[in-house]
């Protein structure tokens, strides 16, 4: 693959508090998605498929597992000469005070020395908590073509939802003229996806300047982008069309999983031209017992189904015992559902045991239940 002289930095330090117990001992990018993946597989696979060779992963919150996971670059094919995945938790450096990352921009600032060693022309900033497939090389072409200082990927969202996002107002050529964070009266429906391409020279200068700005949050959205605008630098919008989802809440995580069951959804994880790579776990094909049944579901290898499954996503090593029913649920790796138990409209965290006869969630419920510890009968 052609080297495109762009280095990627994935911001993977967030806790993702709204994912509740799923992120109690695990950073959000390490949360499971889609039967066999973790959220961070998406930006990493996108990088690998876009021909990016060097990826830095900035970790902070509960990062032990995430560091080990992301560090194994061969999973995404990022293991050829001159390429690699570099896990970058905060570190002590000569001559500076050791501190955690204060904001998204500070995380990059603290790794200027790392980026400089590769001397890239462009730096791609990504967040590690979205589900989407995107060719960053295409975005880079636009960035080069328009000679922008920064290109920001934007997603058209329904106008009535626009006030929930950071909104980019552009001119006819797609040049960004204004940025409004969660505007009450949005002027456009182009939401920032938190994906930026910068000329490294420009960004480097800005980051150093930002270090001494009083009251700065050291954040891309709050500080760096507004400052670029104020200086009259050229900011270009790159319009993305396709599936994109922030899986920051239990509901949205459940919905994104359910989108896999919808043939009309644009989220196809089985495109041979754009595979999503992940850890390989030894497992047999999934097994449906002689008394089991499966309908309208997404099932990974290693699952054993003796009961009934409908409209659900099952990860590897899930076992569903006979006469159990699982409907509209996401069962993460190693979940066991005991004989006769019922699981409805729920996300069940990895390794959780649902005892025989227990009932979890309800088909009439608006809310999605998060089950993160053992459920006994009658609870």
């Amino acid at each position, binding site marked *: 693959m052609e080297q495109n002289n762009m280095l990627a930095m994935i911001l993977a330090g967030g806790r993702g508090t709204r994912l509740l117990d799923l992120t109690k001992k695990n950073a959000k990018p390490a949360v499971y998605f889609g039967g066999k993946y973790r959220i961070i597989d998406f930006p990493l696979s996108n990088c690998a498929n876009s021909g990016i060779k060097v990826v830095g992963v900035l970790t902070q919150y509960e990062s032990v597992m995430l560091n080990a996971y992301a560090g194994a670059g061969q999973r995404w094919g990022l293991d050829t000469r001159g390429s690699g995945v570099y896990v970058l938790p905060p570190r002590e450096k000569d001559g500076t005070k050791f501190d955690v990352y204060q904001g998204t921009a500070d995380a990059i600032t603290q790794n200027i020395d790392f980026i400089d060693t590769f001397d890239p022309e462009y730096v791609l900033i990504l967040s590690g908590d979205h589900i989407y497939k995107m060719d960053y090389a295409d975005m880079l072409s636009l960035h080069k073509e328009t000679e922008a200082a920064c290109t920001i990927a934007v997603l058209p969202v329904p106008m009535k939802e626009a006030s929930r996002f950071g909104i980019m107002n552009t001119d006819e050529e797609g040049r960004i003229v204004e940025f409004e964070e969660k505007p009450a009266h949005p002027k456009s429906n182009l939401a920032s996806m938190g994906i930026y391409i910068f000329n490294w020279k420009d960004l480097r200068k800005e980051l150093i300047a930002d270090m001494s700005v009083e009251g700065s949050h050291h954040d891309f959205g709050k500080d760096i982008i507004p400052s670029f605008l104020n200086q009259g630098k050229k900011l270009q919008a790159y319009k993305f069309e396709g599936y994109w989802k922030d899986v920051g809440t239990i509901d949205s995580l459940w919905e994104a999983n359910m989108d896999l069951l919808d043939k009309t959804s644009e989220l196809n994880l*089985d495109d041979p031209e754009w595979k*999503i790579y992940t850890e390989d776990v030894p497992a047999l094909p999934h097994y449906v017992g002689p008394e089991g049944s499966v*309908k309208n579901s*997404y099932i990974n290898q290693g699952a054993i189904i003796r009961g009934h499954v409908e409209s659900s996503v099952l990860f590897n090593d899930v076992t569903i015992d006979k006469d159990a029913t699982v409907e509209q649920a996401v069962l993460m790796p190693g979940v066991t559902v005991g004989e006769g138990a019922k699981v409805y409209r729920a996300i069940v965290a990895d390794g959780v045991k649902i005892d025989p006869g227990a009932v979890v969630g309800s088909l009439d419920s608006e809310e999605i239940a998060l089950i993160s510890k053992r459920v006994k009968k009658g609870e």
Partner: protein
Amino acid sequence: MCDALGIVTYNDPSVYVRGLQKYRPIAAFSFIGRYRLIDFPLSNMANSGIHDIKVFVNGNPQPLIEHVGSGRHYNINSKHGRIDLIPLYREDGAIQYVSDVQSYYDQIDSIQENKNDYVVIAPVNMVYMVNYADYLDQHIQSGAEITMLYQNVDDAKTHYINCDVLQMNRQKGVLSIESNLGNYKNRQLSLQTYIMSKEIFVSLVEEARKVSSMYWFKDIVNDHCKDMDIRGVNFRGSVYCINDLKSYYDSNMAILNEANMREFSNPKWPAYTRTNDSAPAIYLDGGSAIGSLVSNSSEIHGEVVNSIIGRACKVGKGAHIENCLILPDVEIGDNAVLKNVIVDKHTKIYKKIDLTGTPEDPLYIGRRENI
């Protein structure tokens, strides 16, 4: 670590699987949806701590080269271990009848230079899960010169025809290795799995080569039953012997029994294979499965009953698949009905077709066909 060199070897011409073997060597046969037969001896060896393995291949090596690759996915230590694929090569191109002994002899220098003191030889057409390290310990303690694994079978009149069977004395000393002609119900089926010191192995290979170019390794072992201490050890786990199309079908279908399946899904003794990075399987449009194994990347729109579906297969709307073994990358059209059929890789079966075999004589559909 286990002080043994692993040798995975090919079968003599008495084993021939109609249809499938036209396209690939037995080692590359698909097994239970996502594996190839080579995965089982390699996983057993890797799990046993045998990290130095030579795989002898007759037939087209291409699918195996692609599948085994660097061997990394078998959990072989990439610095202290290696898997060597050794395809048979003869300048005159005639490889069908080159014995295993001839192949071993081609590698004799490298085998002698190998740091391990023992060899463990395993075939590709016998599928079982075993800890070779235990049997090597037992071999060393017993003082035997050669240990051979066998299993008592009670259906040898109709099964395992032409496979090796052992005659043994009461002390399990091997008296001879014979071919099963189907005359007796009860026999001791050889698992074609041998354990011995490297020194004995090398001397037997050299001797066999001098006797006749037609000699197979089992022939020279058989010759020495009278003057060497060769012992049979009964292997009690499940064994699936693939020696013809029917046994290939039966061996696969036997794994649909959950107890049998569980032997292959033991987290402490995993069966490794190459990943294709494919997405989970998906059931749509009321597609369903019952009593089946369904591999990733498959799309099920129809009904799958008591069948094995390989990786990346598509079963159309209203289609009904029963007692079938569907190899990877097969497409089955809407409303097709298949019963007791083996469909080889990359085949397309169009709409509304009715294909029926019997459990005794499953129908075989070739590779890359359009039906």
